[in-house]
């Protein structure tokens, strides 16, 4: 099917469609107070669980306060896992036939995924604020002033947005909601093979290589650096850990550059 480039007017109505789709996804959340409560308690639980239960057993070089080491990791981990909710959301729409109805309507097809990821991003911002507040209550601080702090949050949101598009693409590829849910459980180990909880230096060599090249590790290192929290390794490390901000921005942009066109094409093109 030949697709002509959108004109300004179609771009504007496409954006309006995107806002409508976003609105739709936010409305859904409103009907699930349980999920809202879960979104708000999970950060508290994570900080308590990892900060206090594991924290006593994990010794970190250059800092006696584990929460200072942990918080950047938790913020990035929460972002990565939260952003992946697009995976099940899109798979659900597909399997319920809602996507078929949308495809038969004169709306802009690209607006579906953009609206979905925008809604997810808004939810992510709230999650980030809540978890940071919980961290502050339990003694975490950002030490480098307003600029680097905002930079760190911006980096987390960029990372979050990239992962939400990755989820959207995967969600449009799987055939059922169950497959999507199963795929999501794989995310946790992938996120955990990183420096979120412990420095990679103590890991077995093979695992350490994987962890050091994991974009999650780069994002966490960048945040530790920008927040002025302990755990930024010196000396002999991999390129992403030595250049964490660049590596994070780079990997996020690469993910976006790959996933946005592919995910949009999945919806733009007529389905099979």
């Amino acid at each position: 099917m030949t697709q002509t480039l959108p004109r300004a007017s179609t771009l504007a109505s496409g954006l309006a469609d995107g806002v409508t789709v976003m609105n739709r996804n936010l409305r859904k959340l409103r009907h699930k107070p349980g999920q809202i409560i879960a979104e708000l308690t999970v950060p508290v639980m994570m900080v308590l669980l990892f900060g206090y239960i594991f924290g006593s057993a994990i010794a970190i070089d250059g800092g006696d306060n584990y929460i200072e080491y942990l918080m950047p990791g938790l913020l990035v981990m929460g972002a990565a896992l939260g952003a992946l909710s697009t995976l099940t959301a899109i798979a659900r729409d597909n399997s319920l036939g809602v996507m078929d109805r949308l495809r038969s309507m004169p709306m802009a097809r690209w607006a579906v995924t953009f609206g979905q990821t925008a809604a997810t991003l808004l939810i992510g911002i709230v999650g980030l604020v809540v978890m940071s507040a919980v961290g502050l209550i339990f003694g975490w601080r950002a030490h480098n002033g307003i600029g680097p702090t905002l930079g760190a949050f911006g980096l987390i949101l960029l990372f979050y947005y990239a992962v939400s598009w990755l989820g959207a693409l995967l969600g449009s590829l799987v055939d059922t909601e169950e497959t999507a849910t199963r795929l999501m459980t794989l995310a946790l180990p992938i996120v955990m093979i990183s420096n979120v909880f412990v420095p990679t230096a103590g890991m077995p060599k093979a695992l350490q290589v994987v962890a050091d090249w994991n974009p999650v590790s780069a994002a966490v290192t960048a945040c530790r650096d920008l927040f002025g929290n302990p755990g930024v390794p010196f000396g002999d490390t991999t390129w992403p850990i030595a250049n964490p901000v660049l590596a994070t921005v780079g990997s996020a942009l690469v993910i976006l550059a790959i996933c946005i066109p592919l995910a949009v094409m999945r919806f733009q093109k007529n389905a099979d």
Partner: protein
Amino acid sequence: MTAQDAVIWAHGLTKRFGKVHALTGVDLVVPPGSCYGLLGPNGAGKTTAIRVFATITSPDGGEVRVAGYDVVREAQQVRHQIGLAGQYAAVDEDLTGWENLYIFGRLFRLGRRKARQRADELLDEFALSHAAHRLVTTYSGGMRRRLDLIASMIISPKVLFLDEPTAGLDPRSRLQIWDTVRALVDGGTTVLLTTQYLEEADLLADQIAVIDAGTIVARGTPRDLKARIGSRVDVVLQPAQDLTEAAAALTTIAANNTEPDVDPDRRTISIAVAANAITLPEVVRHLDTSGIEVLDVGIRHPSLDEVFLRLTGHQGLTPAPTDLEASHHR
């Protein structure tokens, strides 16, 4: 009827999924204002055809025009003219009924106020306003399907595609959907309806195309299709009546002198007659003048089931609940 006059016009439509040939050269002409039934068993290609007509998927071959526009080159124009209610109720379970209609209205580019108004109106008209602000997850199957149906009517489409609109519904909900479809057709909407239920096609459709394994195997009015295999005269004989004598007398009115089916145990004889070729009084008179003594006699018109069996050589259709058959024959 030309491609321009027809509301749906398909010529040589083919669609393949890997090795599966879902549609192999479908020709279809649906005139404006009619209710067209696409009747076929599971896997015949009904949903695939609807998905092509509704611009959800592209055909592999052939030409398809809907409302005068080509579904491939002018898909966007087509989308402004159509409504779709899928086989699986395509409404958002995590929203209320009202929100579903409002959001779809907005995506049909209605203004906020107009979308709100339309949602209220439709829920009212189709007796769902009591559940307007409840989550769709709490709806019964019938309510959900009705919501799906009215979601396809937000912009009062010229053409409505209904893919097995009553599959899996209880008899009462099915009647409600049938009433709605009739009202829409009366209002001038062209409806293309797929079904596995024979009496559904019989009751609603002006024209039927029977589809099997991706091909249209027959088309015509329900009456035409039934006429193809004619009717049967069934006779139950008096205990004293000689079977052979009765069979001989009945053979003279059978279509093309076909052999009668004789059941000596039940003492019944059944013969094939051409559709509408003979009336019951004529049969009775014939039996009387031939001196055949009967307990009971009747003319049985074929069901579309039998038509289908005859056309495809296999029994594919789902028998519908029988209580409906009794109460809703025209």
